[in-house]
């Protein structure tokens, strides 16, 4: 049977073949996973990785803590058992080791640090979703030394860092595009927070509200999945109890609603002072010109000295919070530990210890809330107020007021205590605290950091990119004698908004704007009487390859144009090409610019 016959037979089978083909297409179309669905799968995996990374950090931290104190108990219990000089020595040595780790890491991996970031927020918001592995491990090791030896700093920082690093590595391994890598790092951060606080809903909203700045389903969905999976894995590994289980509350009288509704006002007004206090500590330490290891040792020594007075200042404040809510504390005891804890946290944070201030902030809010509750109990004993209830509401309100994320704070307060009865009070007070804080403070805890990093990153990117690298050669030009017909024809043929007008020596004379002529393009009567010189803008801005990108951006704002002409020199004005906003944006986003109409400067002959 020859080929023609064979083909004929195949064609006779075509109806069945077509039906099968149609069925196959139908199945494939319905089973085909979109990018969003694929992201969900990776988000779940990141949840597992995040929880495992957090658990590894916890175990290692416990081990170092045992080596440092000889005790397997919690940090506060261990410190209670230590002699006075050991209470001073352990955090000091811990700080020194943490500082030495950072110092060595900075020396060894300086080049790595310049190219990639170690900060997960930066990687999500302005970076390429790539977090430096070596520098992250250095930071985490440093945090291990500080946290294990009792420094008053939260361990949620390194937990989130490691979890985000795992997500970043996965994104790099799978060669995902930048936006997807960023999203996966955000999932990693959410997984880290969820495993640190066993609070998956609040973790997703923390990342969405504070870091991404948006609560939309497209971005929130994967965050929620990563958080829930991470929280579930953490619960399997070390139990599913809420971190600060509520002792359970009842309102004895409806009159108590009045003082309870004012918790947010009090905390909202205190929060700006707390933020400034932390910033002042940071500024004071930055003025001390000593090597990093010594600086962190000083931070540790301050905590150690305070621990001699009261070992409760050690650690992130997690155990202290549980104790506050479940044991009877007198107001003077609360005030004393609050003041000590504030100084200890400021010393640790200011000296540059790697870690978070979220848990210490929770403690400060709870302590102030409890002091307020004690005052209410003293002033109106008939209300029979439970100060712990004020403490929990205060904790949530203070987080709302310091982070500028009331939604996350409400959810966090609820998830940390799992007490539904307290949820309405949390909701009201978190919102009130947020608004009260906003009267005095517009720079919230993470927003300021993000703003600073964002600006620094953007400026660095701008400084690195050169106009020369982005110039496209051979722009569309016309002589100044070009007729209106030629101008119209050129605009029709090309999709540029401006045509550059040049003389015989290719000197830039001006530009004709499509915006100016578009309503006249269909008027043949103009063809013979109007030339380019009649309608060109002689003051059209231009740039030279020697100028910086920030100057180019400034010129773009003047010209209101997608493209700017590039001249070899601002005196000679010889046109060599053009530069477009899109190419700059793509370059800043780390993408290569698409094919333009012209060759690129210095790349092709």
């Amino acid at each position, binding site marked *: 049977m020859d080929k023609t016959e064979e083909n004929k037979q195949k064609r006779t089978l075509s109806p069945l073949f077509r039906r099968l083909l149609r069925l196959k297409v139908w199945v494939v179309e319905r089973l085909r996973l979109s990018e969003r669905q694929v992201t969900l799968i990776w988000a779940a995996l990141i949840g597992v990785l995040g929880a495992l990374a957090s658990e590894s950090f916890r175990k290692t931290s416990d081990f170092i803590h045992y080596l440092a104190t000889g005790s397997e108990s919690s940090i506060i219990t261990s410190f209670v058992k230590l002699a006075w000089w050991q209470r001073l020595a352990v955090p000091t040595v811990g700080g020194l080791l943490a500082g030495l780790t950072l110092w060595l890491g900075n020396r060894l991996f300086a080049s790595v640090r310049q190219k990639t970031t170690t900060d997960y927020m930066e990687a999500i918001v302005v970076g390429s979703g790539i977090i430096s592995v070596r520098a992250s491990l250095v930071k985490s090791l440093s945090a291990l030394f500080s946290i294990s030896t009792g420094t008053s700093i939260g361990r949620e920082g390194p937990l989130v860092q490691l979890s985000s690093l795992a997500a970043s590595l996965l994104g790099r391994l799978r060669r995902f595009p930048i936006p997807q890598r960023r999203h996966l790092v955000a999932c990693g951060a959410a997984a880290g927070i969820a495993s640190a606080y066993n609070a998956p809903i609040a973790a997703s909203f923390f990342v969405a509200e504070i870091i991404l700045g948006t609560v939309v389903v497209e971005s929130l969905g994967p965050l929620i999945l990563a958080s829930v999976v991470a929280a579930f894995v953490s619960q399997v590994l070390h139990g599913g109890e809420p971190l600060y289980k509520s002792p359970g509350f009842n309102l004895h009288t409806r009159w108590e609603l009045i003082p309870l509704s004012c918790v947010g006002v009090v905390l909202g007004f205190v929060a700006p002072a707390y933020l400034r206090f932390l910033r002042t500590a940071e500024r004071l330490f930055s003025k001390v010109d000593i090597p990093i290891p010594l600086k962190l040792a000083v931070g540790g020594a301050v905590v150690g000295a305070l621990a001699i007075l009261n070992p409760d200042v050690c650690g992130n404040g997690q155990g202290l919070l549980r104790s506050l809510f479940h044991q009877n504390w007198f107001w003077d005891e609360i005030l004393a530990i609050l003041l000590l804890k504030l100084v200890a946290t400021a010393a640790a944070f200011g000296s540059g210890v790697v870690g978070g201030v979220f848990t210490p902030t929770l403690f400060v809010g709870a302590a102030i809330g409890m002091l307020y509750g004690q005052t209410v109990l003293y002033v109106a004993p008939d209300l029979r107020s439970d100060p712990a209830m004020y403490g929990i509401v205060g904790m949530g309100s203070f987080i709302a007021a310091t982070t500028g994320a009331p939604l996350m704070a409400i959810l966090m307060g609820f998830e940390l205590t799992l007490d539904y009865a307290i949820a309405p009070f949390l909701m009201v007070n978190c919102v009130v605290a947020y608004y009260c804080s906003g009267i005095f403070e517009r720079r919230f805890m993470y927003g300021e950091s993000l703003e600073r990093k964002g600006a620094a990153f953007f400026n660095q990117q701008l400084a690195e990119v050169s106009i020369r690298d982005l110039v496209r050669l051979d722009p569309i030009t016309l002589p*100044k*004698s070009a007729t209106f017909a030629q101008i119209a024809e050129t605009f029709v043929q090309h999709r540029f908004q401006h045509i550059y007008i040049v003389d015989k020596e290719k000197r830039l004379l001006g530009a004709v704007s499509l915006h*100016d*002529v578009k309503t*006249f393009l269909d*008027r043949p*009567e*103009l063809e*013979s*009487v*109007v*030339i380019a*010189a*009649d*309608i*060109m*803008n*002689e*003051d059209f801005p231009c740039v030279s390859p020697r100028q910086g990108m920030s100057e180019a951006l400034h010129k773009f704002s003047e010209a209101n144009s997608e493209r700017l002409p590039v001249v070899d020199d601002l005196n000679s004005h010889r046109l060599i090409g053009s530069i477009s906003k899109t190419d700059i944006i793509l370059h800043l986003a780390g993408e290569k610019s698409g094919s333009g109409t012209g060759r690129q400067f210095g790349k092709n002959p």
Partner: protein
Amino acid sequence: MISRKSVEQLRAAIFIGNLEAKSDREAILKMLGALQGHPQVKDLSELSAATFDRQQSDPPLFPGGIAFPHARTNSVSSLVMVVATCPKAIRFSDMLVRLIFLIGVPKNAGADYLEMISFLARHVREDQVIDRLVKAEDLPSFLTAFADGP
């Protein structure tokens, strides 16, 4: 569509009837002279230089014997116009011109210029219209002839 702005500008134009000149240069100079002391003209010599400069590059002429000498210069604060009829045609380049519209326009008003040229050119496409316009003795009769259309 009639441009209200262009109509207003035409009404504000200076009219010179029966302009006689031996050359395009002389005709333009006479028209420029009519702008002496015009409130919108800041520097007549600069306007004059810009007009002749533009004439040198490519004299704007429209079929039927119409010239549009003009200049984009900041020596005028807004669009100014002088209209001249020339029953005895004057040679502009290779065309005998019977109607001249001299226009001065600020540099940032290129769109006004386009609008005005387009407006004028659309109304003077027919020979009979040009004939009527050339016969006008003053601005009102010129405007009437202009408004009558083809």
